[in-house]
Every structure is written in C-alpha cells, then in structure tokens.
C-alpha cells in the first residue's frame, strides 16, 4: 500500500515539463558512490488488509488494561477516558493540522490551546501556562533550566521521593551544564524537612518537590519549604498530579513558583509510555522566560477576537541559540485531549474522579494492610491514590506471575528502581477499578502470601 497519486503517464508529462529524461537525472547531485545500490533490507510492503492482520498479531502479544486489571501507577494512570475525547480529538481538522504559525488558518487549534492554557492555570492556581511540553520529566528539566537562567544561581536541590525517571532526566539535562544537582534522600517516605533546610544554601536556583510524591504520599510542608527557598533566592518547583488538584490545595496557594506535571491522566491513553503531555505553569514574573509555545489573545483587522502564537522571540525559530528552550514540536493533540476531557468532565466530575480514586485506594490499602505477611510501610501518612505495600520476602515475582494468570497487574515493582525496596510494590487504584477487581487482588495477595 502507498499513497502516491501521480500516474505513470503524468510522471512522463511532468518530466517533460522539467526537461529531464528520468527521475535519475533529478538525483544527479547524489554522488554515485553514495547511492544505495540495493533495496532497503526491510520486509516487503503489505496491503492494508495484511497490515491490519500484522498489527492485530502484535497487539495480541501484549496484555493491555483491557485484559489486565491495572493497579500499576508510577507516573501513568488508568483513568476513565470519556468517549467524546477520542471522537472530538480524532477529527481530521485537528489531527492533521500543522503548528499554528499562520494564525488565520489555525484559529481552531489556537483557541483550543488558549483554552487549555487557561484550564491549567485554573487547575494549578498559577498565572501562566504554556501550550504543552513533551511529558512530565522533561517538563521538570525545563523548569529547572528556567530557574537557573532566572536566578543566575547554579545549585538545584531535588527532594526525594521524586519519580526516579524525573530525577534521572534532570540529571541528564544538567550533566553538560555548570549546574550542581543535589539529591536529598527521603525520610519515612516523605521529603526530609530538616535535611532540606540545610541544603537550601544561598546559591540555590530551585528546590524540586513532588506531591503527591513517588510513593503516593501527599507532602505537607510545601509552604514552609517555599519560604526557605525564597529566602535563599531560589524558585520553588512542584511536580504535581493533575487529578489530585481537583481536591488538594493548588500549587499557587502553596508558595510554589513553577508547577510541572504529567497530563496523561487527563484523557490520554496509557499507550506504553507515550505520547503523553508535559504540563508547565508558573507565576507571571517568569512569562518572558517560559519554554515552549504560548498562545495569546488579540484582535484581527476587523476588530474581532482572534488568537495567535505570541512572545515568539523566546523560541528557537526566532532566537536560535539564545532561545529559552530548543523545543519546537510539542504535544498539541494531547493538550487538546486534556482540554476536551476537562470540559466534558467539569470541576465536580473531576473532583468525583479524584474522590473515588482516593476512596478506593484507601479501602484497598486497609484490606491489604490487614493481610498476614503484608505491611504498609508509610500507612500512617496521608496519601492520594497510590501506596507502597511490603510483601513477604521473595513473594513479589510470584505475585506478578500469578496475577498475570488471573488478569491482574498488581502494581509497579519498586525493586526495579531501588534494591532496598525489592520486596515492595507500588499499588495504584483509580475510579476504573471495580469491587470485583479489588477483591481479586486482595485474594491474590492473600494466597501468594501463604
């Protein structure tokens, strides 16, 4: 199958217009010894019918949330996606539109993204939000870069428990820059306030705290930490979860200067890790340093409201080496999905999603905590929709193997991130998990624990 529409006779006609005898003549600038003298070593082309069969075969070799009740979280969550999100986001005029550089040809996308920016401001309680970054971890790296640039300071403090991928991405981004990254270990599953205070010295560019943190616990010290951070001349950066902000205090009211997060829970499929949605919001003072695209409201020549990309002199296509980021293509269609999700579900619907997730996670945690051989190491701390379970020694692998047979994905194996947690599983519970699935999980744990 291919999509070329030029016929053989048209090809000849066109070559005649060009004044060339063959397509080979058009390729004459490629040095002959560089020309590939054989077909590419790839499988032969398929008909569309065959391609669909090949995809189905592949898809059948994986067990998605359709066939495995998903109790895994760790930065990606199985929340319910209303049917309207797919229906509206898959419209060809959104799906196949280009980046809205030509404002008059792109008012649909521009307005959708302007509304998205507003929604993220409403969610976070901050002043400015951009039109998306790639995903949560690189969004955090961009926030740190912005803080370094804004303060002129060179020291960045990362408070554990921070998602290990996020920590590693920040470290990778800072590796080639004159920036020092200090990781402060957690205490009892939460940010260690005393150790952090000591770490917040005068050359501080930013403190990064995740809440709810990687273990699912809600950090209670954000305003206190923010004060210390500001005293040291740095920026307070929070990694947030967008569903949690339906019921938890917003970054804007917690002294946070820059809030970044993963927007996948807002109507975006799990899709084995991507494409996701980097959320980025901050206080007004940073507006001219914000990375990525910004949509602004203006008027057209007839005085009607219109939208366009704005403050483009921050961006690479104008400022090149002096741009605030190198980002070009972002996650437009995912921002659209998130906006449709929020518009469809509304503030009470979102609060309901957050509440149901919280209720089910807490009910499940209580039941698991009562099982002999199992413990909740941080069970006395407030958590959102995720919690750590310590399993009987050596039981974790058996749990996952038996779970697979019963159509359950019990959680995320924490041993993969930290050997000292080899017996621990991070269990998430959303509004999609039914009573029957939760019962099956508890039964599974009980049986494996015996």
């Amino acid at each position, binding site marked *: 199958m291919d999509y070329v529409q030029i016929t053989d006779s048209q090809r000849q006609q066109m070559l005649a217009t060009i004044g060339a005898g063959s397509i080979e003549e058009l390729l004459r600038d490629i040095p002959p010894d560089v020309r590939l003298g054989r077909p590419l070593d790839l499988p032969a082309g398929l008909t569309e019918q065959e391609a669909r069969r090949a995809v189905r075969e592949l898809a059948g070799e994986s067990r998605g949330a359709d066939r495995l009740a998903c109790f895994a979280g760790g930065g990606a969550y199985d929340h319910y996606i209303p049917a309207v999100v797919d229906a509206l986001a898959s419209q060809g005029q959104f799906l196949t539109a280009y980046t809205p550089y030509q404002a008059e040809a792109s008012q649909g996308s521009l307005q959708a993204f302007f509304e998205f920016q507003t929604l993220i401001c409403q969610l976070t309680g901050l002043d400015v939000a951009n039109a998306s970054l790639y995903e949560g971890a690189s969004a955090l790296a961009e926030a740190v870069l912005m803080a370094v640039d804004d303060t002129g300071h060179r020291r960045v403090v990362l408070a554990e428990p921070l998602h290990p991928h996020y920590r590693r991405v920040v470290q990778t981004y800072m590796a080639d820059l004159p920036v020092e990254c200090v990781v402060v270990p957690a205490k009892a599953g939460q940010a260690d306030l005393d150790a952090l205070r000591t770490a917040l010295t005068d050359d501080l560019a930013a403190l990064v705290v995740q809440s709810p943190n990687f273990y699912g616990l809600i950090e209670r010290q954000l305003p206190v930490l923010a004060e210390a951070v500001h005293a040291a001349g740095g920026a307070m950066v929070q990694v947030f979860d967008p569903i949690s902000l339906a019921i938890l205090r917003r970054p804007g009211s917690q002294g946070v200067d820059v809030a970044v997060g993963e927007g996948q829970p807002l109507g975006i499929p799990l899709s084995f890790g991507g494409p996701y949605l980097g959320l980025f919001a901050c206080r007004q003072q940073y507006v001219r340093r914000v990375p990525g695209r910004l949509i602004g409201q203006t008027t057209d020549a007839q005085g009607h409201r*219109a939208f366009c990309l704005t403050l483009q002199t921050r961006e690479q296509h104008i400022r*090149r080496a002096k741009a605030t980021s190198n980002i070009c293509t972002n996650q437009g269609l995912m921002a659209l999905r998130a906006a449709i999700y929020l518009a469809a579900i509304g503030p009470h619907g979102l609060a309901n999603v957050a509440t149901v997730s919280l209720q089910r996670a807490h009910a499940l945690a209580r039941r698991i905590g009562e099982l002999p051989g199992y413990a909740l190491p941080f069970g006395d701390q407030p958590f959102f929709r995720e919690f750590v379970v310590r399993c009987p020694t050596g039981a974790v692998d058996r749990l996952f193997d038996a779970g697979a047979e019963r159509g359950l994905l019990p959680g995320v194996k924490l041993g993969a991130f930290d050997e000292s947690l080899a017996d621990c599983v991070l269990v998430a519970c959303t509004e999609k998990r039914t009573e029957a699935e939760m019962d099956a999980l508890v039964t599974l744990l009980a049986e494996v624990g015996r």
Partner: protein
Amino acid sequence: MNAPTEPTIFEKSCPGSNPGRYVPAAEGPTPAELLGPAGAELLADAPPPLPEMGELQVVRHYTHLATRNFSVDANFYPLGSCTMKYNPRVNEWAAAQSGLADLHPLTPAPLAQGALRLMFELSRDLAEIAGLHATTLNPAAGAHGELTALKVIIAYHQSRGQKRTKVLTPDSAHGTNPASCTVCGRSAVPVKSRPDGRIDLDDLAAKLDDQTAALMITNPNTLGLFERDICRAAELVHQAGAQLYLDGANMNAILGLARPGDFGADAMHFNLHKTFSTPHGGGGPGAGPVAVAEHLAPFLPTPQVVQREGRYELDWDRPDSIGMVRSFAGQFGMFVRAWTYIRCLGPAGLKRASETAVLNANYLAAKLRSLLPLPHELPCMHEFVLSAQRPGQDDRGLAGRIAKRLIDFGIHPPTVYFPLIVPEALMVEPTETESLAMLDSFVAALAEIVRELESNPVVLDHAPHHATVAKVDEVAAARSPVLRWQ
C-alpha cells in the same frame, strides 16, 4: 460555524449543566475523613474553577473549532521542511488497538512482547534506512533528538578525555540546531553557505579545530539541495576528531536512495511526524528517534529495547549511557503509526515516495520559476526555495503578504522567512502524496497572486479576506500578552 468568533468554553459555562455521570459516584468516607487530622490543611476549599458544560455543548464547541482550521485532510500544505504528507487512517486504527493503546508503560516484559517487538523492529528498520548501527526511540521530537544526539557525542568525546566546547552549524540551519547546542552547554558556531546554497568547505575547514565536538548538517539542506561535497565535509570533520550529525528533517528526499551512514554521518535524528506520516496534531505529538554508528551506541539514552534469547525487553542497565531524556521509553503511539506505515510501504514504497517527492518538487520549481525568483540551480531534491525579493524592487514583507493571500485560495502558505540566507524566502515542499491537479492549482493560485501584485497590490496588503478571521494582529498580542481567559 463561519462566524467571526467562537465563544470560549468559559463563556459557554453554565453552572449545574454538567451532570458528571461518566464514572461511579463517590461513596463512603470523605477525603477529609480519609486523610486524617493532617488532611484538612491539605484539601482545597472548593474544586478548581473549571467551566461546566453538558456533553452536547462540548461536542458543538470542538466541532465548531475544528472547522476553523486548515488541515492536511482538507488543504494542501506545501510547507518546506515539514513534509506535510497524507496521514493514513490505518495508522490511527493501529495505534488505537487494545494491547497497544491501553498498555501500561511499566508492564513487565513478558506481558508486553508485542509492544517491545514493534519497538525493536522499528529501531532496526530506522537503523537500516539510516545506514547506521543502532537506534534510540526515546526522544519525543526532532529537537529532542538533536539534544539527545549532542549529549551522546559529548559523552563519546569525554570517554576519550576530550571536552570540545563548540558545535558547527550551517547558517542555513533550522533554529533548533543552535538552540540544542545551548541546552547542551556548547557554543554554536555558524558555517557560511556558498552562493550556490551549499556549505562552504573552506569556511568549514577554517572553523574545525580540536575544540569542535560536531558539525550539525541537514542533507538535503534547508534549500532543498543535496550537499554534493558531503563526503569531503565528513572527511574534514573526522580528521579534526569531531563527529558528523545529520539533522534528518529532510529524509523524505532520499529514502532508499542514499543513507546518511553511507555518506559519513555518525549520528542522525528522524522526524516520524514528517518522513513517516504520523500526523502533526496542531503541533505534535511527534517523535525524534536517533540512529548512531557503532562507536556511539554505548552512550545512547536509557532504556533501549533489546532481544535476549528470543524475547524482547527494555534494558535499563546501561553503564555508559547519557541517562534518561524523558520518562518511560518513548512516544509509543507514534511508533505504532510509523511501524504500520513502513510495513505498508515496504522498501519499494519508501523509495517511490522519495522519488515522487523529488519529482513533484522539481515540477513545481519548473513551473514557478517564471513567476518568482529561484535563487539556486535546479535540480532540487524534495523542496526548493523561492525568493519574493524581485530585483530592483522594494519587496520587504512580500513573502508574508503572498503567504496570507494563499490562504484565500484554500492553500496553506509555504514556509516563509526560512532559511535566513534567502531574502523573502518561500520554501515549498509538495510531498509525494499530492495529485498533479493539486500541484497545478497551486501554480495557478501563485500566478494569480503575482498578477494581483502587478495590477492590484492592495489585495495582498489586507489578505486574507476569506479566512475565518482577517489578518491577526500579532504585534498587539506580544505587546500586552493575554495568555489566558479572565
């Protein structure tokens, strides 16, 4: 639907209109009860002030907005360097399949074999197309790929005890190239282009030294011309101990015809949303896989997909890796689309795509050169640059005015004002999926506009006249930015 404005969702919001019955209702202990004594201070007083609308209103809103967009589905986009080819629908179907769309990223490998096999095969296919050794699928877009590759190259030099603080880029380079250098703590040094549009080898030789980490080059370059001297450039770069990086934005010109690894590249990125037909989505998501030569492979980011004893898994244990550049393993949904596209086209289809892209571009160049100046000699590859700067005329801003007037013809403007080395640049890339009739309509539209330029230029000054809005005041937008609805 073609009203001058569409009210925002905030203006349409009507409290109480959203019944919110998509998921079960909360029942049982309240959040305050569940979070305990500490809980009260953690909870907000009220939900966020989001708008409230019923589902039909949401559907009407986003259906109306969709009509206010150009799109490949509806319009020709001859945007140079963007490769706005058709986005096949079977790819969308594929990405939505159960087992792919609903797969959690931390699913253990034995339960994710299909997804891992897809990634392994795509990595291998891209390495073959690149003529290189190994591929990382981690980067989320082309610019992210550039950043990743630069870090890999820096790590390579470091492993040999060398710091190397400079990166060379042609003055015709895409803005992401120098921006990526800055993000990696390197200084971007421009290399001049010759009058014929190609890189100036003498200037390159003069600027290469033992502080040069890499030359970042696009080939075909941003003028749509194949760098005939690419092998000599590669030689010079390697003699200086530097690495050659190929910005693969223009790969649509050479699929199955030439391979960057064969003409000296050590590393390159692909844009799946250009060459491999994944949809642009109004500005992403894209994907920017990076292919590298064997000596750079150990430094690739983490995780990589590997095959061990017939099974596929993600390798997180990579001691020489630069680390992670994003969470999880990559833009998987875009991999499904690109994999399906490559399977459908096969080697013959990919080669035919590039040949036809080159044919279509040369056809348009031949027809348009009588209308507007064509600064460089033909043949071109898959794109070419016209200049709206006519000899002896004050044509400042003309490329922009032509662009806006094209909108009235239902054609998205070409890329304008890029590359920087051509005044009043209009970069045209038709791609291989357009019909001859569409190409001829484009020529006719430009001919009409050039006629208007002679007879009635004021029509261009106030274009577009028939779009959803009149000319948008971007200057006012930047002067006092309003970035959210209040």
